[in-house]
């Protein structure tokens, strides 16, 4: 039988956009991302995962991981750790790296993919991962889709799922907003939000001026998130599990009938004028105002729109994600971590031998 393999994507580039300049967004050290992968692997190893397939990540991520793996000593070195395999690929330093890596991982039949990054990284993975479950890990405070979660726990939860000890009831079907443009029904997609900006240029990408945004759609609206999902939640919270999403139209706060105070980015709380909102249902296509302007996907301007461009957004099914809280809850209730996992038994034997 093939060894159970889990894929790992750790985006080395996340967390360096203009929001660090204009909004005080957090920075996330790449060495810490390498350490997170190590801790994730510890959780995977403890639950019997024997192989990790990782996208080679520059800028210190892979280097830190390899150094940490090689530098383990004492008890830590004795702990079971999956074999680490880096994908053989040429990195181009852009989003195509992530998409290519996911494609290779699917060919290698990974049982799940752990993603360390922001909304943007998860967006790229979500478009191409099919029904391979994702373990989402946020590497920063500016995200709504991935979770802030200790990587060790995420590794344990992922291991319990891919080894079959926790069933599909711990997987959550996410939503995607598919963007059509000029007849191309799947031009792009977003996992959290699609926004129409009056800014003609993609520019520095991050969406951080509320005055530029005319309207937006969200897959879910979380009051405790940051960004457009939080703005929508102040109108009507929408759980991730709900089938519907929201379409919100904005107005100049000086003339709007309703004005919200909302966290657009970490440290950036702004007045938001509301022109109206409505629910969007699965399969429904919402026509958006065309150009001139730009379209932002999950908080980053991605497409420049010319006058006459026809843009529509359809709410559809997204990827499966691992609900870490649910998995660990089941593990506790069902005693899945009672006793020693087979991979840890030698630890106990070792300790028993010590008087």
């Amino acid at each position, binding site marked *: 039988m093939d060894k159970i393999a889990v894929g790992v994507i750790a985006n080395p*580039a996340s967390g*360096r956009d*203009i929001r660090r*300049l204009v909004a005080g967004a957090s920075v996330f050290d790449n060495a810490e991302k390498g350490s997170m992968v190590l801790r994730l692997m510890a959780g995977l190893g403890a639950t019997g995962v024997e192989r990790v397939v990782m996208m080679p990540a520059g*800028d210190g991520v892979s280097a830190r991981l390899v150094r940490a793996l090689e530098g383990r000593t004492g008890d830590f070195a004795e702990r079971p750790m999956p074999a680490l395999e880096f994908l053989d690929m040429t990195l181009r330093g852009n989003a195509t790296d992530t998409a290519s890596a996911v494609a290779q991982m699917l060919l290698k039949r990974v049982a799940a993919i752990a993603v360390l990054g922001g909304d943007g990284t998860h967006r790229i993975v979500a478009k191409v991962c099919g029904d391979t479950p994702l373990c989402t890990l946020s590497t920063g405070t500016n995200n709504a889709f991935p979770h802030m979660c200790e990587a060790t726990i995420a590794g344990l939860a992922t291991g319990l799922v891919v080894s079959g000890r926790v069933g599909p009831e711990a997987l959550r079907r996410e939503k995607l907003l598919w963007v059509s443009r000029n007849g191309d029904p799947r031009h792009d997609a977003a996992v959290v939000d699609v926004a129409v900006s009056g800014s*003609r240029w*993609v520019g520095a990408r991050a969406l951080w001026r509320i005055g530029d945004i005319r309207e937006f759609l969200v897959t879910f609206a979380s009051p405790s998130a940051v960004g457009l999902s939080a703005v929508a939640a102040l109108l009507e919270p929408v759980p991730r599990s709900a089938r519907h999403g929201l379409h919100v139209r904005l107005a100049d706060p000086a003339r709007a009938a309703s004005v919200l105070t909302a966290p657009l980015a970490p440290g950036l709380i702004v007045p938001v004028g509301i022109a109206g909102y409505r629910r969007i249902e699965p399969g429904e296509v919402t026509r958006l105002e065309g150009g001139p302007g730009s379209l932002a996907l999950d908080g980053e301007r991605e497409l*420049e729109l010319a*006058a006459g461009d026809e843009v529509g957004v359809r709410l559809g099914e997204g990827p499966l994600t691992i609900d870490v809280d649910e998995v660990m809850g089941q593990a506790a209730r069902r005693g899945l971590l009672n006793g020693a996992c087979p991979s840890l038994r030698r630890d106990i034997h070792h300790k028993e031998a010590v008087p």
Partner: protein
Amino acid sequence: MSEIGKGELLGSYRVMRTIREFEERVHLEMATGELEGFVHLYAGEEAIAAGVCAHLNDDDRISSTHRGHGHAIAKGCDVKAMMAELYGRQDGLCHGKGGSMHIADFEKGMLGANGIVGGGPPLVCGVGLSAKVRGTAQVGVSFLGDGASNQGTFLESLNLAAVWKLPCVFVVENNGYAEATSSRYHQAVDDVAKRADGFGMPGIVVDGHDFFAVHEAAGEAIRRARAGGGPSLVECKVTRFYGHFEGDQQTYRAPNEIEDARATRDCLERFAQRVVSAGIVDPAELAAIDGEVRALIDEAVAAAKASPWPDATDLTTDVYVSYR
């Protein structure tokens, strides 16, 4: 982002096209042997100088690098005088005494190209301190490369600017090579911007081939500095179209690396395609600028060649001590 007017778009295109034409012509003139000394060409990196300097006025100061022609043009230096300077003639911007690597024009706030790698950042700390003490709204911008980012002068300047909260912006033009050494061999991290974290200032990364990305990021960094928010670091990832210096055989670069960059990451092509697609600019307007710039560079070269050489009496002028 605040919209950029058509006039400013055309102005920025003219700046970028002027830099490109200037550098392509210098490349050809160097091959004839008529130009003496070293030159380091800025072709490929035009969006950075144009995107940053669009937010500066003559009172603001920039420090440049050994690859300084683009910065000088974007800061408003006279192109004909620049060409004459490269030819070492009396009509040159520095009367033929500076050459390519020390070209300067204080009236335009161009403190000079600099043959010392990492020499610019401390100068800009001086600019920032001066502005702060005198209470002016001036901003100092230091352009530097990824190689210079390994110099102590850069790191000390980051510290000084941060601790004194100086109105400075450090623009790192990361073209992936320190002379002939790939950044993979001279830096343990890919992003120079991360070094800002250690000094308590924001550091961000933008695509240096994209005028609009640079323009927006630099605009915010400069606005922040001018408003008293302190220094910041903007790293622009970019590709140079020529070698470290003219004559560099570039054996350290991958096959087709430059051809690929010219085909896919030419900032001028990208700019033109986007402003035309947006329906803001007519291709004929860009073509007209191209023609005017070509004529300007032709005139600049002809005038430079016709300009007299400095004579012996010029040796004692433009120095700190009066010899007369």
